[in-house]
């Protein structure tokens, strides 16, 4: 931590005398993914929060309410009447200058869809946790990534995490990214409902001063536009033609910048806290691999285990864990995948109209740069169906035979089709 950051940390502490002493020291705790999210959010000192419960996210809002009640969180906490309002509240609060936070999942995420688009269009640097769950249609209180996927063109930055520690850390990094003057785009931090939300793991909970220090550089930037009483300004005024086009262009290029920025923030995080996750993508044994599996979220742990097993059997295989889905890490994926012999993509959601996985469809768009090699879509892990070691081994078998020149099926619905 630099001197300036340390100073800032101390200064803040003095100011907020209501605050307890619980988080004055870095501590190791065994907590769930939801609890990690609540801790991460609280440590970033959000000023306005809107909270509405939904399985499997509920624990996040309960725990944050607890932080507020105990005095650990000094903020405006709105116990809102629905997610649509939750997103509208934090968007406007952010426009008025607040650091703002909310958390949701599935039905809640799609219920706030109009407000989600507005938050992105208004370029408010808010952070939201989305605990991945299947969406309305067939009622399924279960895990899956369809919720996040269905908002992929909303203009948000979307990050996918895979452990309780990573959830906590990613929220801190998310504020650094969202509030960066060159970015100013809302960030959605995703993690798997049920698998990660309720899983208790060892988590290092950083102390307040360290988090303050990490976020301190945000204070040294130029001021973003803020709506203040007595200072005439229109927030979200009507714009058409060139004006609209220009805003869209700027938004889109900010997302492009966010990719490298996220890598840099990951490195800065490592310097500050000693942990890093690879930025946009996390690669595992890919350097000399012929075949690569692409996955995201909690199933990556299982996939990693299968990679080790197969490596022991002499197979040259590696894993890419996608950490950033929007913006799509094109450059880093191309760099890692160029020259490989076969690629398998595991999706936990469906790209309707393409009868394949959405992440697979997007990777296919990189074929001109990667090379026209066998690329396969594996749909698995829908509605709490476990992506087991056996399932991934089956994927690897398909991948291997395709890499050896055998004919292959482009899309496999694991669990629907017998081997």
């Amino acid at each position, binding site marked *: 931590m630099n001197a300036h950051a340390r100073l800032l940390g101390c200064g803040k502490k003095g100011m907020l005398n209501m605050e307890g002493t619980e988080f004055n020291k870095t501590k190791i705790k065994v907590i769930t993914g939801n609890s990690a999210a609540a801790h991460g959010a609280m440590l970033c000192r959000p000023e306005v929060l809107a909270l509405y419960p939904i399985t499997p996210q509920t624990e996040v809002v309960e725990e944050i309410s607890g932080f507020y009640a105990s005095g650990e969180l000094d903020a405006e906490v709105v116990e809102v009447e629905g997610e649509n309002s939750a997103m509208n509240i934090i*968007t406007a609060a952010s426009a008025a200058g607040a650091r703002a936070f909310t958390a949701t999942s599935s039905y809640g995420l799609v219920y706030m869809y109009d407000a989600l688009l507005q938050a992105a269009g208004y370029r408010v640097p808010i952070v939201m946790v989305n605990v991945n769950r299947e969406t309305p249609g067939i009622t399924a209180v279960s895990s899956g990534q369809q919720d996040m996927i269905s908002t992929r063109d909303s203009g948000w930055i979307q990050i996918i995490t895979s452990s309780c520690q990573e959830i906590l850390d990613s929220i801190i990094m998310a504020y650094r990214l969202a509030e960066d003057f060159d970015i100013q785009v809302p960030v959605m931090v995703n993690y798997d409902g049920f698998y990660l939300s309720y899983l208790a793991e060892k988590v290092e909970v950083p102390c307040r001063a360290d988090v303050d220090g990490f976020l301190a550089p945000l204070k040294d930037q130029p001021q973003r536009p803020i709506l203040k009483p007595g200072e005439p300004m229109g927030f979200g005024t009507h714009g058409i033609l060139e004006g609209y086009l220009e805003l869209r262009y700027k938004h889109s290029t900010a997302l492009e910048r966010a990719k490298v920025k996220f890598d840099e923030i990951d490195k800065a995080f490592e310097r500050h806290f000693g942990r890093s996750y690879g930025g946009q993508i996390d690669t595992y044994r890919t350097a000399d691999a012929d075949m690569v599996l692409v996955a995201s979220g909690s199933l990556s742990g299982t996939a990693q285990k299968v990679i080790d097993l197969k490596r022991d059997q002499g197979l040259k295989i590696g894993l890419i864990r996608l950490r950033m889905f929007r913006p799509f890490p094109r450059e880093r994926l191309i760099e890692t995948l160029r020259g490989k012999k076969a690629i398998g993509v595991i999706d936990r959601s469906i790209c309707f109209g393409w009868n394949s996985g959405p992440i697979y469809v997007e990777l296919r768009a990189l074929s001109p740069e990667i090379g026209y090699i066998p690329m396969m879509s594996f749909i698995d892990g829908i509605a709490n169906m476990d992506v087991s070691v056996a399932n991934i081994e089956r994927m690897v078998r398909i991948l291997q035979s395709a890499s050896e020149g055998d004919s292959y099926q482009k899309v496999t619905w694991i669990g629907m089709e017998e081997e």
Partner: protein
Amino acid sequence: MTNRKGGLSKVFDYFCNEDPFAEGLSPCPGCPLELALRLLGKILGSQDLVMTGTPSCSNPVMTGQNVGAWHRLTAYCTLMTGAAANATGLSRQYRRSGQDATVVCFNGDGCAADIGFQALSGAAERGENFIYVCYDNEGYMNTGVQRSGTTPIGAKTATTPVGPKQRGKSTRRKNLPLLMAMHRIPYAATATLSHLEDFAKKLLKAKEKKNEGLAYIHLFAPCPTGWGVPTHQAIEVCRNAVRTNYFPLWEAEKGIFTLTHQVKKPKPIMEYTRLIKKYNHLKEDELERIQEEVDYEYEFLRHLTEFRKCVATKHQTAGE
């Protein structure tokens, strides 16, 4: 309008205040929205005013549809769904950061009574600190005069036309100001543009009361274009709405109701409906039905105003 001794009504003083809106606004000719907005700006003053507006007839003025905003105010453009939620977010942050602000939602009935009602009711229940002004033109006017929850029974709109099988809207209007008062918020009131002094007082009271929780003003604002009212007669329509008890003027503080304007001898509803083309098709029995609706609602309100007496004797603190 009650005159002050030896001079003009107080409301004329407000007209001397600075007008935060540009000259020549963009509503239709004769639309009372312009008067409403200008007066609101002059009364509340622009120094701490933060206005929010939705897609609606106020949109061209508030957010400058196709041109540029027509005012020098701090303004935030909301969605129809989340207007009250946006105002919540703004006012919470101003409260937290210690900035004086009068956040005002200026929305149509379509937002307030229908699509944005959840957010409005939620904000009322939580006691958010802002003013919500619903200008009621009894329909979705910006999209071309469709029915809304506050469109009255019998009224002709683009989606409740008149033909052999339909006689305008078949269900009664939602009494939104009453619903809001039933949240027992610190301040709920009705107002209209023929009674400007009353409107002005209510706005100022709302500004004061919003520090205790949500303040709500339901502003009756006829739509000359959509209702078929000559451009010079919108204010006359407002006046007759009050005289017939179609739109009584009242206020409620934490559920304690007071009539702010007593109509000694209410005129028959015909005095009101005859000015408006959207009622042209109505026959005598249909008008009687509307009269019954008006009588019922007024009687209901009158009973509510009497409730104050029981509260005063039985539970001294109920209104606190």
